[in-house]
């Protein structure tokens, strides 16, 4: 496996940048911004909750791009992008759900409720977990890649549904940070001043971390395919 030095240097630089940004974001979350008046320290969870959701959103968007590009070109590199993005996106979606539960316990007085937003994010998580499981069940590589591309595009409907639902359903209690809502959420707060600065810094940090993790995952997949191919060559020679 050989990559250009320039690309490897960029990846290395981005990795260190992501690490530095993460440390800075944590410092901002705990020291730059103070606790919220009514929600106290629990409100701090909101920075990583939203940041990780952005990470999953970007990842699943990349899976859609990979899917469309694969169906158009049949180039396997797009399938690798799709697979890598879904895996990383699923990890971020897990962080979103778990951090949301930690916030909901003191604010809503429950770890979990079947609110429309929580239900939709669960459907989204299950849809992408199914992507990984179904993918491994198809043996023919070409069929597997085609299926994954189509599924990756269709599953994105669950992401859009999750984003839109709190803006259109009046019966949700999930707060809306950006844009209008018809609901009367519980646990909403004003996003201004230091809260806004910290939020945007966390969003930027999670976006960089997402790109870095997807890039590393793509390289891992390429290495895995190369090893499998080389093994077949060596076995054929024996």
């Amino acid at each position: 496996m050989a990559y250009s030095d320039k690309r490897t240097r960029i990846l290395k630089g981005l990795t260190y940048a992501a690490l530095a940004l993460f440390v800075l974001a944590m410092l901002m979350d705990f020291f730059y911004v103070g606790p919220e008046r009514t929600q106290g320290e629990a409100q701090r969870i909101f920075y990583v909750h939203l940041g990780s959701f952005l990470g999953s959103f970007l990842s699943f968007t990349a899976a859609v791009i990979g899917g469309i590009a694969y169906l158009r070109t049949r180039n396997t590199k797009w399938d690798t992008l799709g697979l890598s993005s879904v895996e990383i996106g699923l990890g971020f979606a897990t962080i979103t759900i778990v951090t949301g539960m930690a916030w909901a316990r003191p604010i809503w007085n429950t770890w979990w409720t079947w609110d429309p937003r929580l239900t939709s994010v669960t459907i989204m998580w299950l849809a992408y977990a199914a992507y990984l499981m179904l993918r491994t069940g198809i043996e023919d590589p070409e069929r597997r890649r085609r299926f994954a591309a189509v599924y990756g595009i269709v599953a994105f409907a669950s992401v859009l549904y999750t984003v839109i639902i709190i803006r259109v359903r009046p019966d949700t209690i999930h707060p809306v940070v950006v844009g209008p809502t018809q609901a009367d959420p519980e646990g909403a707060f004003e996003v201004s001043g230091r809260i806004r600065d910290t939020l945007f810094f966390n969003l930027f940090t999670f976006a960089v971390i997402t790109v870095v993790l997807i890039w590393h995952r793509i390289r891992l997949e390429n290495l895995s395919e190369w090893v499998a191919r080389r093994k077949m060559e060596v076995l054929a020679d024996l």
Partner: protein
Amino acid sequence: MGKYAEYAFLGYGAMALILGAMIAWLYLRYRALQREAAIVEQVAAEEGGDRVHAAVGALESDAQPDQATPGMTGMANPTTDRTRAG
């Protein structure tokens, strides 16, 4: 510690755990694949060496002792072979 600090720590701890697990999985899988790649290359190199020996062996068995040039081509040398056999 302020109000609901334990939940903030719980949330951040869970985030660090999941993110850490994702990074650790990537790193461990990368290390395992690198080891696997090294083993495959080692087997390929050994197999390549065996093929060279087999090719030389085949040449030796095909060669006519009286036509061979001992010490020059690496072909069988009846004299030395006899010596070795003895």
